[in-house]
């Protein structure tokens, strides 16, 4: 079907297919979703690798993301510049990791990055507090937040440094049966 399209070269499409969990059709569909966010910025011809970045405000206004309390972190983690402004590559990568075909370790890696608010490669207490507040819309009291953070670190921190490293996180994810289905955005 995609033989007649002129957006990507055949090699580009093949590369995308190999590097993401999408088929040709889906990649093209995602391209059109990307373009719909800002038709005047995104050209219809990607064969010469144009350098187009959509600002975070447009990405965050997508219906799949606009109500998610973690949308800013998601955009920051997957964007090249770390600010949430995404190229098409970042866009495809983001939805590829969040699709249902992505394996658990890959998702756990990115989930860890999303919850690591201060980007120090560890989920410390302040990161946990921010996560909790986003999860419950600030409705937990200070005491409750503190208790939950203590409990989480108690349960998951295996190397006893008071914060969660990637291994701790991945080890905990192994025991969560529905992580694969919750860390999933359908697009």
């Amino acid at each position, binding site marked *: 079907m995609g033989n007649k399209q002129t957006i990507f070269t055949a090699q580009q499409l093949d590369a995308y297919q190999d590097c993401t969990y999408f088929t040709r059709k889906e990649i093209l569909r995602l391209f059109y979703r990307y373009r719909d966010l800002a038709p005047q910025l995104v050209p219809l011809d990607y064969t010469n690798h144009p350098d187009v970045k959509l600002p975070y405000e447009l990405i965050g206004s997508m219906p799949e993301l606009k109500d998610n309390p973690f949308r800013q972190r998601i955009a920051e983690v997957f964007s090249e510049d*770390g600010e949430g402004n995404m190229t098409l590559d970042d866009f495809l990568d983001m939805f590829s990791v969040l699709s249902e075909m992505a394996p658990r370790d890959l998702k756990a890696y990115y989930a860890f990055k999303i919850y690591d608010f201060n980007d120090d490669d560890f989920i410390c207490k302040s990161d946990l507090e921010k996560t909790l507040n986003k999860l419950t819309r600030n409705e937990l009291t200070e005491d409750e937040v503190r208790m939950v953070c203590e409990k989480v670190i108690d349960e998951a921190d295996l190397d006893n440094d008071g914060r969660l490293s990637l291994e701790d996180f991945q080890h905990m994810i192994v025991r969560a049966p529905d992580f694969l289905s919750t860390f999933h955005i359908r697009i």
Partner: protein
Amino acid sequence: MAMEIQRQDSGVWDDSEDNGSPGDRQSLRLRRVSSQVTQKNYPQFSWSVTPTETDREGPRGSQRDIRTLPMPMALKRAVRQVQQMQVPVVSRMDSWKRKKTKVLLKLKDDAMEILSFFTLWNKSLQMIGGNFGGGVQSYFLFLRFLVILNFISFLLIAGFVLIPSIVFSSVGTSFLVLNSTGLENCTKYDPNPQGLVAFYKYLLDVVSGTGFMEYSYLFYGYYNNTVVEDSDFSYNIPLAYVFTAVFYFAFCLICIIARMGTAARVAVATGGSTVSNYSITVFTAWNYGCLGDTATTLQQKNLHYQLQVDLEEERIKKQAAALTSKEKVVLYSVRVLMGFLALGLIIAAFYCIFLATNFSQQKSGTSGIQGLIWDYLPSIVITAANFMVPLLCDQIAVIERYAPSTTVIVALLRAVFLRLVSLGVLLFTLWSQITCDGDTNTGDCKLCQYNHNLYPCWETRIGQEMYKLTLFDLLTNIAVLLLVEFPRRIVVDHWSSKLARWVGRQEFEVPLNVLGLVYGQTVVWTGALFCPLLPAINTIKFIILFYCKKATLFHNCRPAQKTFRSTTSSFFFLMVLLFGWSLATLVLIYSLSEIQPSLGCGPFSFFPSMWSVVANTFYKLPTVTREFLFFIGSQAFSIPLFVLSCVVMCYFAALFSVHGKNVALLRAQLKLEGRDKQFLVKQIVELSRRLQTLHHSAGEEESI
């Protein structure tokens, strides 16, 4: 210092970030998270294929691994290019396979979406879950499960018993053979009302199942022992009746166990409800696919409730653990005492029911409103007992001071015991009257092997009792709704006084409501053999109940202050339901095999027991089938089968324990490795500090 060490730890990917100055906001993904695991997985920067975890194997296994690498797209493309230079042939077969699996997955997804559109009350359940928490939602999920179960049972019964009865009533031959002449009195059964019937009598008949309702498809007495035998088609109504009843019970058992299996699997997979609960809730409970503002808010509220439940349990546990031994002794003796008190209350209730049923039987036959009241006396007493005793037990539970989830379980167990055994008492009383206290050769029972004076058609009578119980249950629920809950809300809202504020809006009591459902379902199961349309009536009753309970929940109740854990609760509800099912099965087995069916009505008029129909038909089967079935039932087959299943169970138990030990061992190892790492890091810091001081002193010496 620490940063450098981290960089050394994390392997070579970090080289890419050295280009930018530390001040720039770097790409988060290029900055690899430092981890020992990655050290093992990506040892050298040789672009070689790294065996990461792959979910599916494929012919081009190496090529697939790119997608599992957590790198930005540009890097992945570069890796891919290098790999392509190494691997000359790219197979197309694999991409077709992948496309196929993708298409199948998408189809399955679309099918699930369409199904969820048709799933009953999906939106309502979501709203309830968001506003009142998982515990209340589990009650409504349970109710929905029962509605669907009853509906399918009704289809089953209608298809195999009701519709053939209607169709073949004019076609088939029904035989009423009198084996001996002395039994004419036994066959006298005339439920049709004579002469002019007053208008209000119709209403009374509908409510108590007598009169025009008695001799209808509603009750056992109307069905005939029609046997249709055509050249190529035969249908034996009595046989169908028995088999449908048995299959109905088996079907319900399978549904309950299947549902228990899914609930148990979740409970086991999470390794028990107490391990890693908080971390899993915080990190994996958020559904990223949730769209819309309302859904998101609901989810947030849900999570809030869940965390509150867990925290409260913790608090209570801490309190309980902090008691001195003297306080503990006092507490335990108080608990034992209260337990006896609760038991005493329950036994008192049983005695009242026994008395009421006997009295009602004595007074049966009086007409008018008084007759109605005497008829309904057992139901009234049962409902009153089921209302009063749990209230008193609640107050007892306050003195007992168990943890919240234990309190709930204890209250539920007591209420289960009360409700289901009171039903048993009612059935026992009926039985003792039908079979003259079990001795079928005395007094009234001598002629027909059952008490034909009181009960010319005893199956219909039991069916009527169950029908009355079901109706009365529904009426009580609606009456409580209208007369207690709505007024309470109105009073509390509009009359601000201390009393009103103390009473407050009510909470939705999940365990007691669930018990009401289990009780209703048990009544239906018990009565299904004698009142084939009871599942249909029950479906309608439960649907009405759903909407009534939803209305009262949203208008009259406040969110629970005593939060209720929902993870293990669905499993527990199904256990209780199973207990009710086994009670009904006992009744079924006893009625099928022991009691003489009524001679004046029903499809089993002249069989010694209902099960003998099956035995008779069995002997008409061809020899081969008969021999085969005999063999399956014989010891030569069942004992080896039993031994084999024991062996298989032992094997699985051993496997399970070995895995458990393995997991514990690995977890301990992980902890040790973590400590090792910390120790080594400290050593490195120490060494580099010493090295620095050495350099310092060496430098000073040189400069001197």
